[in-house]
């Protein structure tokens, strides 16, 4: 059975404070009765009730009592610790006691707000208060642990979010490692032609920033690289990065582009080209790529597949091609990490009734972006899949894969706006062409967005409010032959409509990256059900994660447009800068520690720790907790068969005492307990 530590302690003097919280608590719980009853506990020196304990008067009550009555422990029965634990710990500290000699009883969220039964609520309040009193008596003073913050930062992902964050930090004088999986930074924004609502040329506003990153003294740019391992904790992360072999010597390459020209192997560009264009086996994604060194795609390179060719090597004027180049493993230390890995476009092949992949002239949004881009495969001409014919009628379909219980229930936020943008671009490129826009709702919340919508209304776009049921080439009526027929219910007219068009653009939604779970595990973060990374608090802490020192920014946190992404990139950077500015950060002392004399060296705890915070000392044959790595979950404490591990602030004695306190009114007679 349980061995309870017999501690020879002098009686503690506990101050108990029952908060009314106006009528929030006092309206249901009889606070005076609870106070009176608490006062009878032998450990309690003084019991008070007050209207608003969190007010300065309330806090001063605590401070005064500690000083005047020599209290050694404090209990406040009020709201949730997530609200005011910090507040009352502060009051305790100002009164002269260690802040951890304080315990809170949640009699609001867990009691007065959760029931109308006043008697039951009061009874429950007594239990909760008693639990807190019995527990706090066993509290030990604890000191926060200082951790130094390494001023370097790792930014994962070189899209606009990562670029913004990296530049902000680099400009503040701190060093940044920017790791990007592709051969160049730029991300999805580099694929886009114009950005809504200003119709800025995307590349024109992006490339100066890309150049800044490439040239910045404070940024180490690692492209075609991936983070493989992350060890450590806030202020001191050890990062291992694999720099994949591009087969191009960076010091020798002049970015002349001859290798790309001469390469005979052409493949469909699934990445930057969104599958609409071609690239060579040795390639730069686009001419303004940063860095400008090409990447050799070994899977499609004739030399790597068959042993022949080597044309790039022959023609390179500086002999920069190196087929023997190997992956490089890099290790470095950083204090903070910002994850900005971006999004994937919803795969429209999942919706067979829209015909993407089967019907030639159904395009996705990214395919259309590349088409309408002047540097794209069609030179900016809007044409059908045959590369030549100009469409006379174009349909744009909203909410493909979004707002759909069968695929993704959430709204992807940007699609309405970019659909309007496409409508405008089609009007611009082909003034005679008719545009039909099929929408459910028109979501235009940002600055200038509604005005942009009105502009499109004036441009004679046909807006049909109805979710598209089907896109088919099976014609029924005259006038439909050879066309793509978009069938939708026009809900404003209350009729089914079949609209024959030449080209359909599917506004596919934003999804989390396919490997987001893997990335989350790597950085000890969490993902939600849709794969987007979990922020610490959806309203108040959107760029922080539950793991100290790891931040997220941009579309990897949830679908958003460019202004929001840039804002988040800056926010993450500023939070990191704040930590760097503080130099040292105080960490919560809720951690485990192993009592050497009781440890049997069984090592069961070693593999249980998700933070690898327990090491085995082979000489002493005992396990040891690395305090700074320990996050205080307590799993090892519960697992130790010898009971040799103490979880600070959640010791067995404390929890068991709280249990006994909670069950004060249902305890069996004393002679029956502790048999």
């Amino acid at each position: 059975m349980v061995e309870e530590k017999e501690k020879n302690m002098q009686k503690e003097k506990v101050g108990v404070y029952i908060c009314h919280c106006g009528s929030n608590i006092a309206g249901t719980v009889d606070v005076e009765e609870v106070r009176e009853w608490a006062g009878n506990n032998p450990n309690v020196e003084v019991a008070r009730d007050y209207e608003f304990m969190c007010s300065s008067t309330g806090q001063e009550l605590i401070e005064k009592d500690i000083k005047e009555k020599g209290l050694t422990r404090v209990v406040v029965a009020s709201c949730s610790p997530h609200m005011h634990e910090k507040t009352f710990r502060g009051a305790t500290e100002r009164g002269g006691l260690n802040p951890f000699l304080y315990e809170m009883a949640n009699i609001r969220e867990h009691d007065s707000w959760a029931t109308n039964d006043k008697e039951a609520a009061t009874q429950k309040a007594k239990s909760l208060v008693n639990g807190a009193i019995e527990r706090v008596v066993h509290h030990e003073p604890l000191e926060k642990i200082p951790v130094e913050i390494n001023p370097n930062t790792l930014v994962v992902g070189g899209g606009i979010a990562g670029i913004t964050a990296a530049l902000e930090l680099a400009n503040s004088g701190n060093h940044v490692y920017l790791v990007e999986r592709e051969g160049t930074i730029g991300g999805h924004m580099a694929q886009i032609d114009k950005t809504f609502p200003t119709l800025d040329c995307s590349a024109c506003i992006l490339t100066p920033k890309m150049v800044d990153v490439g040239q910045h003294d404070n940024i180490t740019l690692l492209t075609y690289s991936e983070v493989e391992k992350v060890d450590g904790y806030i202020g001191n992360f050890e990062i291992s990065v694999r720099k994949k072999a591009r087969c191009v010597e960076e010091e020798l390459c002049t970015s002349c582009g001859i290798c790309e020209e001469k390469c005979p192997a052409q493949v469909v560009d699934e990445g930057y080209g969104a599958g609409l264009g071609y690239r060579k086996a040795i390639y730069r994604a686009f001419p303004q790529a940063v860095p400008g060194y090409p990447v050799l795609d070994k899977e499609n390179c004739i030399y790597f597949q068959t042993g022949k060719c080597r044309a790039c090597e022959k023609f390179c004027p500086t002999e920069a091609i190196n087929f023997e180049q190997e992956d490089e493993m890099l290790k470095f230390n950083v204090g903070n990490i910002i994850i900005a890995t971006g999004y994937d476009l919803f795969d429209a092949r999942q919706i067979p009734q829209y015909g993407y992949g089967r019907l030639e002239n159904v395009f996705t949004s990214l395919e259309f972006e590349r088409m309408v881009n002047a540097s794209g495969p069609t030179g900016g001409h809007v044409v059908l899949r045959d590369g030549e014919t100009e469409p006379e009628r174009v349909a744009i379909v909203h909410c493909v894969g979004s707002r759909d219980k069968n695929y993704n229930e959430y709204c992807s936020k940007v699609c309405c706006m970019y659909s309007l943008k496409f409508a405008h671009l089609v009007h611009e490129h082909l003034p005679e062409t008719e545009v039909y826009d099929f929408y459910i709702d028109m979501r235009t919340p940002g600055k200038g967005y509604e005005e942009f919508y009105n502009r499109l209304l004036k441009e004679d776009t046909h807006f049909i409010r109805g979710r598209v049921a089907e896109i088919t080439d099976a014609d029924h009526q005259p006038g439909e032959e050879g066309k793509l027929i978009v069938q939708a219910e026009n809900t404003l007219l209350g009729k089914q409509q079949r609209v024959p068009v030449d080209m359909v653009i599917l506004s596919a939604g934003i999804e989390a990256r396919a490997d987001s779970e893997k990335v989350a595990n790597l950085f000890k973060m969490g993902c939600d059900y849709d794969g987007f990374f979990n922020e610490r608090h959806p309203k108040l802490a959107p760029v922080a994660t539950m793991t100290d020192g790891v931040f997220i920014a941009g579309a990897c946190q949830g679908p958003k447009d460019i202004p929001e992404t840039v804002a988040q990139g800056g926010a993450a950077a500023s939070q990191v800068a704040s930590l760097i500015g503080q130099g040292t950060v105080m960490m919560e002392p809720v951690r485990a520690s192993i009592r050497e004399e009781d440890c049997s060296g069984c090592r069961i705890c070693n593999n249980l720790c998700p933070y690898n915070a327990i090491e085995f000392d082979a000489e002493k044959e005992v396990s040891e907790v690395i305090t700074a790595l320990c996050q205080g979950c307590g799993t090892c404490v519960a697992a130790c068969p010898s009971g040799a591990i103490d979880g600070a602030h959640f010791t067995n004695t404390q929890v068991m005492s709280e249990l006994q306190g909670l069950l004060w009114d249902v305890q069996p007679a004393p002679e029956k307990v502790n048999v």
Partner: protein
Amino acid sequence: MSEQYEPVIVGFLCNWCSYRAADLAGTSRIKYAPNMRPIRVMCSGRVDPQFVLKALRNGADGVLIAGCHPGECHYVNGNIKALRRYTMLKKALDQWGIEEERVQLLWASASEGTKLAERVNTMTEELRALGPLRWHEKVLADNGAHRVPVKEA
């Protein structure tokens, strides 16, 4: 005062998910059975089976262990360890004749206040139907020796 027997449930709620779920239930003013008395732990992985046994021995009629959904644990996989311990504990409890409904496990994320409230309600009714546990009579004999009821094969 209702004459009805009111079961007492001890709830071990993890700081990051289920405790916040209970907070949310309160903030949303969802009314549910007041029979669950919560204890905060940092992670459901902290819940030692001894806590559960102590609760039952000290008069609780049931114990609810609530943690984050698998895959969402703030400490990566503490809830999985809780699940393992819980499974083993249930086997032991079963051999002592403790009914299945008395110790339960629940995954509730911070946004699932309703789910937690509903489970507390369901569990309260289940325990009300079973009646008080009376650990000392059921599991421990009056003279202190363990009486293990022989289970039918």
